[in-house]
């Protein structure tokens, strides 16, 4: 057994096991941690396939951002998952139905190869993988700002809208909030900070 095959079985075995643990573990925080483990192993699988860019993106985006976000949400919302899981069997018919639908779709997809064999030939002019010694990342970088610059910039505008939208819809300017103003604090001196009053004996202020 070659080293690559050994790593393949290692990564996929751990990925499947941790994916199972995501569903099975009682503590939701453990679920998210197992999810991260599954992501990392999937990244390993991508590395074995030679898709190093995808592997890195998976780590950066899914582990670095999405899973951490999940972790925050799970910790902050304090959802009682054991309570959620109580009605599990009630949903079994519906869940089973969905499972059957997915199964049929899988069969359809595989069946396509037999029902429409010419579809394979129609994809002949689809994008070819870079073979001229370029690494995956370099090949992507080469087309991102040249051939696909329009998509790239449009996607940038979409993200800008998402950012503006989030700010418009959620940012609150509360007038009563006291914020620390270090400049004002440092600029205070004895004259401005204190007021001397002479209080006559026997009288209040």
């Amino acid at each position, binding site marked *: 057994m070659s080293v690559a095959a050994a790593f393949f079985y290692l990564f996929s075995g751990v990925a499947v096991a941790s994916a199972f643990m995501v569903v099975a573990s009682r503590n939701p925080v453990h679920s998210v941690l197992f999810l991260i483990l599954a992501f990392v192993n999937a990244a390993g699988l991508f590395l074995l396939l030679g898709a190093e860019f995808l592997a890195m993106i998976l780590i950066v985006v899914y582990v670095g951002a999405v899973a951490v976000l999940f972790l925050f949400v799970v910790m902050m919302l304090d959802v009682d998952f054991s309570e959620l899981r109580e009605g599990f069997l009630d949903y079994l018919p519906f869940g089973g139905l969905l499972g059957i639908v997915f199964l049929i779709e899988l069969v359809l997809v595989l069946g396509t190869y037999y029902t*429409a064999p010419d*579809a394979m030939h129609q994809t002949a002019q*689809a994008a070819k993988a870079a073979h001229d010694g370029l690494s995956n990342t370099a090949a992507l970088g*080469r087309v991102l700002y*040249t*051939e696909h*610059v329009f998509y790239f910039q449009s996607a940038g*505008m*979409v993200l800008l*809208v998402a950012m503006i939208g989030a700010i418009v819809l959620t940012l609150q300017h509360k007038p009563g909030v006291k914020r620390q103003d270090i400049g004002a604090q440092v600029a205070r001196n004895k004259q401005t900070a204190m007021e001397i009053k002479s209080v006559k004996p026997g009288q209040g202020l």
Partner: protein
Amino acid sequence: MTAPLAAVPALLPALPELVLAAGSLILVLIGALAGSGSTRFVQAMTVVVLLVACGLVLGQSETREITFHGAFIVDGFARFMKVIVLLASALSLVMAQGFLNRHKANAFEFPVLVLLSTLGMMVMISAHDLIALYLGLELSSLALYVIAAFRRDDLKSTEAGLKYFVLGALSSGMLLYGASLVYGFTGSVEFTAIAKALNGHASSGVIFGLAFLMAGLAFKISAVPFHMWTPDVYEGSPTPVTTFFASAPKLAAMAMTVRVVMTAFPDIAAQWQQIIVFIALGSMGLGAFAAIGQTNIKRLLAYSSIGHIGFALVGLAAGTINGVQGVAIYMALYVVMTLGAFACVLGMRRGDHYVETIDELAGLGRTNPGMAFGMAMIMFSLAGIPPLAGFFAKWYVFVAAVEAKLYALAVIGVLTSVVGAFYYLRIVKIMYFDEPKEAFAPLDGTLKTVLLASTLIVFLFWLWPAPLVNAALVAAQSLH
């Protein structure tokens, strides 16, 4: 290893889009740095940017140009649609001022989001492959979701935004699924390459993908059976936002639908024609019957817009040059009528309080004859009564349908149009024959101008239809 420098793609065809993008970035910066004091300036500059882009579109050469490696096309059709979209966006921004000021909901983000949404619509109209189409659609829709919920303290507005967002995301998913199937079975995302790969034969996978693609597109133009969001979103959104929703995005989505079916699937017309016929029938029927019981004028106009999309689709179902010409004329006149109708809705105001129920219009003919006359003309036109513009709009699409031998569709279309006339005429009856209620505050200057312009176009279109009809013909011919 030195990689050869890639040639810079031709940017000139996309100059209006670049102006919009740069303008929106600069205006965001100005608004963010200068704070709320700059709102008025940003609003004015947004309108200027939209008009400059409109001028640039008008100044583009007549030829068909494709750039960005086949992602972006400029032809007569794109120019025709872009001019109307830009003008409609600019007008709805101008009309929004009074409402937003009175509701203290005026923030510099509003015009900027409208600008970004318009940019998305321009990309949609000029999209020449499925990726550009999706990016344009998402850019325009995302901005629309936000401005639907722009009055975030208002329960209805936030509900409208959320509903629109969730259903919009669902429809985007369907569109993407369809696009992936089409790509998988044709090997290309570019429209002309898809048409070439199909070569008149449609495998079941492509038809499947086409159906999902049409479902996603039908959602954006709010055609039955993907119309459910329209009445709620129209009613819940702030009225100026509804004005915008009803005009520019509708037109852009329709333009995109026309371009997809006419350039990517021209040889398998029989496949998409039956889908279009079905959703056209559904939209016309629902638009005619569901609007009858409405009491809220925005809801009524929402059902009316569903019906009108149905009528416009009749032209597309024909699938001919005349049909596309009919769609272009229909959508252009529909935008004119909608802006006029919403100018009236925005004028339904007593003091600082806006009202939305149809009964509030009672006796408008006596309390404000000018506004009532404009509204009545627009209602007659929406009903399709000759010699107003709405009649000619319907004329062109139905003639195209008859020429394409879609007799049943044309006959049912005319019948639903008769049924629909009932609720348009009911508004006229309420305005002229019911006991007057308290008078509305006088119309703002901008609303008055828009209403006057819309009424004049509707009223006098039959005298000089040539400019629009010829421009629409040029636009339709450029698709072939």
